[in-house]
């Protein structure tokens, strides 16, 4: 089974308090209750710059050089390109070129686990002369001002380095639950339409339960044996509901939602990094993705004490910005909107 040999994150320095967004719109602060913060990506960063930095952190942690990568798989829903690769230039920035398999994944936040799966499959295929595969997820999500998405949409990046051997954790199972349900969607360059959030959450729960049940049945491990759980959810409370539905205590959930908000594909790898920072040898981790089209679930077993990415320190390194500065950073002020 493929093993984890390194992981890294890159979190933007800038944050905005959710209460600041509510105040800008003259609201008392329902929904997220006016609590928490979200990450703000400055205008000169995009999924490539964010992804390169997370990937470099993962490589440095493992002591692996970019030229030793045989596969680079990237996931993002916010590159802004209709055509224009992310994985290949990302690999190139890391020093990986030539005999390197690359793949771009997007259109659904769930695609982060597709990128991870492709990294594992690349290793299993035995192609390429090097033994390392990298999965990267990076986002710079932009929400319509005044919308409910504005309270959570953020950005950042995470990266996971895999190899066939020599890691600190192994992938012990992977399962999918796919349906025709799309959920959140939007046209290119447009904002999300209005949706029935309650219905959306019910579908989320059903899909997450579908992939997790299939996984647990396949690996014959009961849910209570998992020490840490990561659930990719566009709303923090959805993840809490998912654990309840799976019969697990909320304390097992590892999430950066209160500090960073929702960073699409990247959220899963950032939360996984935070979980690995806390994990001890022998512990099991449950990692669940969700996005348009369904959910994937992975089980990881920690075999050795993992190296640290110190996500906590990056969460602390921050600078709060005002709502006008936030709008400017999102490219939502002035004529140069992007």
């Amino acid at each position, binding site marked *: 089974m493929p093993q984890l040999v390194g992981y890294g994150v890159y979190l933007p320095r800038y944050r905005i308090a959710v209460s600041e967004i509510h105040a800008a719109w003259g609201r008392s602060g329902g929904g997220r209750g006016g609590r928490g913060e979200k990450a703000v990506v*400055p205008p*000169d*960063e*995009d999924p490539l710059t964010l992804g*390169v930095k997370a990937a470099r952190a993962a490589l440095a942690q493992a002591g692996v050089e970019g030229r030793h990568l045989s596969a680079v798989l990237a996931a993002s829903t916010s590159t802004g390109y209709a055509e224009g690769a992310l994985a290949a*230039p990302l690999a*190139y*920035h890391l*020093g990986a070129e030539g005999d390197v398999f690359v793949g771009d994944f997007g259109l659904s936040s769930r695609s982060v686990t597709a990128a991870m799966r492709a990294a594992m499959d690349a290793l299993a295929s035995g192609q390429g002369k090097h033994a390392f595969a990298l999965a990267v997820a990076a986002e710079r999500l932009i929400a319509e001002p005044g919308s409910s998405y504005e309270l959570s949409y953020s950005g950042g990046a995470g990266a996971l380095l895999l190899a066939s051997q020599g890691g600190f954790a192994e992938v012990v199972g992977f399962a999918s639950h796919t349906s025709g349900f799309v959920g959140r969607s939007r046209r290119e360059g447009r904002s999300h339409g209005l949706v029935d959030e309650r219905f959306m959450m019910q579908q989320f729960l059903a899909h997450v339960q579908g992939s997790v049940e299939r996984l647990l049945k396949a690996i014959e491990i009961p849910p209570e044996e998992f020490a840490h759980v990561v659930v990719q959810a566009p709303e923090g409370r959805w993840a809490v509901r998912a654990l309840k539905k799976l019969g697990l205590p909320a304390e097992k959930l590892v999430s950066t939602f209160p500090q960073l908000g929702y960073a699409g594909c990247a959220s899963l790898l950032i939360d996984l990094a935070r979980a690995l920072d806390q994990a001890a040898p022998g512990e099991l981790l449950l990692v669940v993705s969700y996005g348009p089209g369904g959910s994937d679930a992975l089980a990881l077993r920690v075999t050795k004490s993992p190296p640290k990415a110190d996500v906590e320190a990056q969460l602390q*390194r921050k600078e709060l910005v005002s709502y006008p500065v936030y709008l400017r950073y999102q490219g939502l002020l002035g004529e140069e909107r992007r």
Partner: protein
Amino acid sequence: MTTPEIWRIARENARLVGYRCTSCGWVAFPERKRVCKRCRAPADFEEIELKPYGRVLAYVVQHRLPKGFETPLPVAVVELADGLRVYGHLVECAPEDVRVGLEVEADLRVMYEEEGARVYSYKFRPREREREGS
């Protein structure tokens, strides 16, 4: 789209690759040279991976710039650890916090957009230990 001008130095730019004169140590960046500026003679150059940090040697704060730039914008001459001097924007740093000697690190950023594609290069930001000290 990647234009020929951008592609020519893409590798040096993306990975901070420089060329060091084997006789005196002067570093050429981003273009490989045949003649060393310090030896003032033809020289052999070896490829090196530049250390991505250095110190501010001099700076100005720009207030009047064309559309597309954030102002006030601190711009600095940075001496990298390998001895070469480069020119770059400072980010994540208020103009009043810039000073000569400030320790900075190279940070990959979008520089501008051209023909529908983003062009990337390095800017500089204060190293983390500088922030802890302040």
